[in-house]
């Protein structure tokens, strides 16, 4: 498992193509929204959090897809499955590498977004990274599972968002609300945060258990 994870990270370290392209994409999404909204709307914490998550979800979807398309193109998946390892471990490797990439991207995009929208940094030094990480974990868990399904169908680019987005609804609502409360300087560790954690736990476990059914030939 660590070997696969290491391989993914090493590949990225050498080429840096995924993280860099994601970074630019996330910024572009934010830019599009900034242009679409009026200046008054932009300064509300609720919009800041919505923007952050919209950018994360769309950039993240492409990232996850990329991970599996690479494996599929070079037919590495078959080789990976021939190895005498548990599919659950393959899942964890893929899932963790995605969490890493998205975390790196968010580490740059989140402060930039706050700065661009003129939202305060001070309230969220500890909370924001934690919430972002929780969101990324849940997203990557479900995303890895769905992408493994989508990549081996026709029209894989369109089927992944179709599957993933409705299933992500609870994560999205919870994350946006927690982040919104956080940015507004309110209490954020309430019910929404618990829903976010529950989503993470449920789908990490589900992904781990179900991955075997998806990858077996």
């Amino acid at each position: 498992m660590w070997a696969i994870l290491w391989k993914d990270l090493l590949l990225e370290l050498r080429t840096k193509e995924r993280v860099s392209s994601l970074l630019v994409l996330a910024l572009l999404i934010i830019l599009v929204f900034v242009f679409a909204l009026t200046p008054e709307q932009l300064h509300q914490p609720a919009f800041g959090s919505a923007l952050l998550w919209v950018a994360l979800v769309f950039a993240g979807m492409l990232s996850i897809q990329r991970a599996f398309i690479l494996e599929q193109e070079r037919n590495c998946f078959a080789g990976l499955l021939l190895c005498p390892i548990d599919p659950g471990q393959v899942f964890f490797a893929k899932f963790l590498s995605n969490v890493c990439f998205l975390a790196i991207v968010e580490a740059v995009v989140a402060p930039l977004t706050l700065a661009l929208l003129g939202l305060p940094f001070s309230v969220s030094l500890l909370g924001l990274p934690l919430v972002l990480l929780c969101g990324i974990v849940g997203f990557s868990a479900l995303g890895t599972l769905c992408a493994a399904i989508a990549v081996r169908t026709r029209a894989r680019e369109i089927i992944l968002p179709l599957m993933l987005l409705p299933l992500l609804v609870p994560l999205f609502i919870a994350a946006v609300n927690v982040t919104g409360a956080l940015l507004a300087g309110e209490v954020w560790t309430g019910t929404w945060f618990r829903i976010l954690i529950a989503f993470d736990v449920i789908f990490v476990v589900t992904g781990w258990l179900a991955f075997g059914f998806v990858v077996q030939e």
Partner: protein
Amino acid sequence: MKTVTTHSGLVDSFLPWLTCVAMLAALAMVFLYVPNERVQGEVQRIFYFHLPSAWMAFLGFFIVAGASAAFLWQGKRSADLLARAAAELGMVFCSLVLLTGPLWARPIWGVWWTWDPRLTMTLVLWLIYAAYVLLRVFAGDTETVARYAAVLGIVGVIDIPLIYISIRLWRGIHPKVEQMAPEMAWTLLVCTGAFVCVFTWLLRLRVRSLHLHDEIRALRQHVVAAS
């Protein structure tokens, strides 16, 4: 080679008639028997078809999940076909909810759509169904795809409680506890019965047609291999 399941021919010959009778009874009760609701007037009669549709959509979802689990567990082709048929029907009934909902909301609330928790929930449910059905369409009809779809079906049902909780919290709770007159309760019961009949009938038809499709494919391979 597998043969078409004929173990319940009695049900199959009986069900269409039962459905017709139940549907006629339901229509008669909705339009002739049940009194007008005091506040909303006659438009409220949509409710007797709206709510059973929603229940059937949920039923479809649980059949999909159950059959998917059974398929992953035992690998039986018939479980997979059942899940597939139930997903299609669930989507049909979900569409009915989404179509009759606005037609009821418009005269009562003055808008076609509100982000009421139940409406939102139905919409999300519809989208998950749509993804499931499209996955089947895009990915073809192989053993692997059947497994993918089964995983999606189960993940969907695991997600439902989370979706429900988050959507309820998102827009606050609309308490809609209302005392129902006995006539209304009876009408609702008969309508639900009629919808269960329609659902079961269409489900059986669809499952049978899927089995037939399988069988024809096997036959074709057989013939081609022989010639």
